[in-house]
């Protein structure tokens, strides 16, 4: 179990002292027990606190047991601490007990219980690093378990290859991803979305112009299986644009927005193509729609600004520019601290 943060500990000690005074138990022992717990000396903490009727002491006894791998002995105390401590008055004990119990449930593979606990903690402590970490760990465990079962029970399924390919993609190993997608396609050439994923991996694997044609063939195959796939139409359009086949690209974009009228990226690309032909009215219409559908899209707003400008509607263009300026402001990132340290930020 991770040690309690230095910020949390003094508050817990104050709580311990107040509680001990009101119940006439040994305040010094409870304080020492919590201090020992904080230092990671769980066995000694448990010995110091065991036998106390103080509910905080009992909570730390349970947490000490959980920290030393005795979830079976700890579970009752952890559940009691999590249920009994008020999230307003004793949020830290509730948080620590909840995290310890969730870890025990994950270890026991009681994933439903663990998920329930972590969901409660996430709603009460949405920015807490420990809660976010345990949640991520939970999903990782659940993912690993599911993958293990899949490889164990359905090793010949094309889904095994598909999943392997997706994992390679995440790792940036695109050649391996392409190979696995090809195996998956070979096993099940009619599976929806496989050709699309293969086409995308081909584009990521290689910068060679020939990759464009190979990817396009896969997107076309996807559309033959699923004629309603607007995203595949869009991908083909973007490839055709690179190849200089602008009329054909525009046709595919028209297909994409017909299939999915709320497809912001396709609306933007089609609006841009129409703008190049000075078809201002329809271009404006499409780009306004794209910007409305995707209010955070710099691409939609940028192209809307330009089509207004090119159409002679300068005031409207300047209005959109204001929105674009806001969208382009960098959010506070992980380097805020670094920049403050070297005096670049107040």
């Amino acid at each position, binding site marked *: 179990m991770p040690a309690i943060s230095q910020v949390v500990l003094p508050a817990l000690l104050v709580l311990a002292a107040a509680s001990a005074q009101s119940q006439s138990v040994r305040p010094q022992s409870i304080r020492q027990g919590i201090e020992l717990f904080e230092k990671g000396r769980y066995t000694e903490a448990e010995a110091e606190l065991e036998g106390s009727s103080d509910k905080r002491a009992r909570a730390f006894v349970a947490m000490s047991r959980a920290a030393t791998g005795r979830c079976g002995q700890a579970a009752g105390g952890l559940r009691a601490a999590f249920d009994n401590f008020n999230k307003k008055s004793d949020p830290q004990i509730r948080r620590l007990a909840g995290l310890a119990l969730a870890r025990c449930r994950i270890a026991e593979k009681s994933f439903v219980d663990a998920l329930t606990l972590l969901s409660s903690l996430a709603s009460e402590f949405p920015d807490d690093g420990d809660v976010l970490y345990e949640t991520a760990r939970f999903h990782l465990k659940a993912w690993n378990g599911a993958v293990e079962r899949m490889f164990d029970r359905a090793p010949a399924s094309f889904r095994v290859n598909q999943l392997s390919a997706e994992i390679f993609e995440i790792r940036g190993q695109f050649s391996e991803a392409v190979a696995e997608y090809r195996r998956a396609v070979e096993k099940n050439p009619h599976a929806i979305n496989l050709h699309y994923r293969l086409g995308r991996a081909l584009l990521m694997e290689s*910068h060679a112009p020939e990759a464009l044609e190979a990817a396009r063939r896969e997107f076309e195959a996807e559309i033959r299986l699923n004629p309603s796939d607007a995203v595949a139409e869009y991908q083909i359009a973007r490839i055709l644009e690179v190849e200089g086949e602008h009329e054909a690209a525009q046709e595919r974009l028209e297909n994409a927005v017909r299939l999915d009228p709320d497809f912001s990226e396709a609306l933007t690309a089609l609006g841009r193509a129409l703008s190049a032909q000075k078809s201002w009215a329809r271009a404006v219409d499409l780009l306004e729609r794209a910007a409305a559908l995707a209010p955070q899209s710099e691409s939609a707003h940028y192209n809307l600004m330009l089509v207004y400008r*090119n159409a002679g509607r300068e005031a409207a263009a300047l209005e959109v520019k204001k929105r674009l300026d806001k969208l382009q402001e*960098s959010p506070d990132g992980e*380097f805020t601290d670094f920049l403050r340290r070297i005096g670049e930020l107040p």
Partner: protein
Amino acid sequence: MTRLFAALGLAAAAAAQSVNVAADAGLTHIFPNGGDESKTWILETTGSGAAWIDYDNDDDLDAFIVSGEGGGNRLYRNDEGRFADVTAAAGLESEGWGQGVCAGDYDNDGYTDFLVTYWGRNRLYRNLAGERFVDVAASAGLLQDRVRYNTGCAFLDYDNDGDLDLFVANYLKFDFETTPRPGDNPYCYYRSIPTACGPRGLPFDCNLLYRNDGEGRFTDVSNESGIAAPARNYSLGVITGDWNGDGRVDIYVACDRTPSLLYINRGDGKFEDEALFRGAALDADGRALSGMGVAAGDYNGDAAVDIFRTNFSDERATLYRNRGAGDFDEATLSAGIGRNTRYVGWGVGFFDVDNDGWKDLLLVNGHVFPEVAGLAADIRYRQRSILYRNRGGRFEDAGEEAGPGVAEPHAARGLALGDYDNDGQVEALINSQNEPPALIRFDGEPKNSWIALKLEGVQSNRSAIGAHIRVTAGGRSQVDSVRSGGSYLSQSDLRLHFGLGQAKSADVEIRWPSGIRRRLTNLAAGMTHRITEAAP
């Protein structure tokens, strides 16, 4: 007023087979620039530029190469096509992290001076009668109050007072003490490999404008001019031009990982960045790319000067078509430049490789991180150049047909273009990291004719920087301007070169920075014409 000083006949290339003749020409020194197998700091990745400068006024181009730490810049005098190292004799010995170079006769004495930018103290080299140089940065008022990461630069006469002012781009704030090391944070990785950090995550700096006060001194007017106002850009390559046609010079800055800048000259000593609204800051998808180098030229023959910017791998180089009044549309895909995305582009220039009257494009490339050698990807550290042949306003990658000079892989940065042997065929001088320079000739069967113009200002600045030229021959017109800086931290020939196709003569119209206009008719092809501005 027009004087012929070279008559070398018709020469050009049909097939334009490129070949690197640097070693034969005497350009054999290696110019260090950080690590060759790995780099710890971003400072190791950005250097350095190259320049063609006729410093001794003998009508042929001399070569200047900027060096990173561990070496020194070198000046090579052109002795009939062979280059002699005259660095020491010219008083140009140096050390430090040299970055960029730009040229101009800032004191109007008839000899071309130049600035070398540094991470650290910039050097302004005043040319003493073509014999040697002296660094006058201190007496000229160009010392800076702290260590700055100066990159691209350009001399320009922004107030049209007849002397050259100076723009200096600044990349970011860097020092060895506070900058994180490879792997220290998420911006210190490339494709999961720990690499030099930045530019993202490192503090921005602002660009600088120095006004020439006419007595050999400059005043920093960065704040009052508005040049320092944009403060969220990582500035690298610089080019100047009058994009909106109002007779005042504007400034374009290629910016890395941030929107590029287009400073529009208001005419009252103030500039305003209008790149976003004018459509020259982002790509067509509204993304800020990793701008490195920049070139200006009229690629489609509509008499409006367009902008071309090199970017990072996984991005396309960006061609911005000037709609005629300084508003731009991205024309990368419609012009046929969308297929190359594996290269990190740096130096770039428009030039007419086959003298057919359509400006072609040369891009030199090289990855930022030597560590990409360890990647299982089709990206290499040393990369080939790209020659885009202009086929009437649409480009084609010449690929292997461009010959071995273009195909050679380099960790290239600076590129300067100029006809160093005055044969009517422009050559490329390339500065690559930790390599000798490359000198690329484009040889082929003579076919098309050409004309070159060397302008000399009288009322305008002596280098005629900012002069706008229209050349008409064989029923076609071409436009260009005399520019300082450009490409990637480099200086190309201040003379202007035009391919004329089959035409035997050309008409030339000049709009000098002073506002004076001049028209010359029936200038003979196949030679360089020296044209002096009419006295006031």
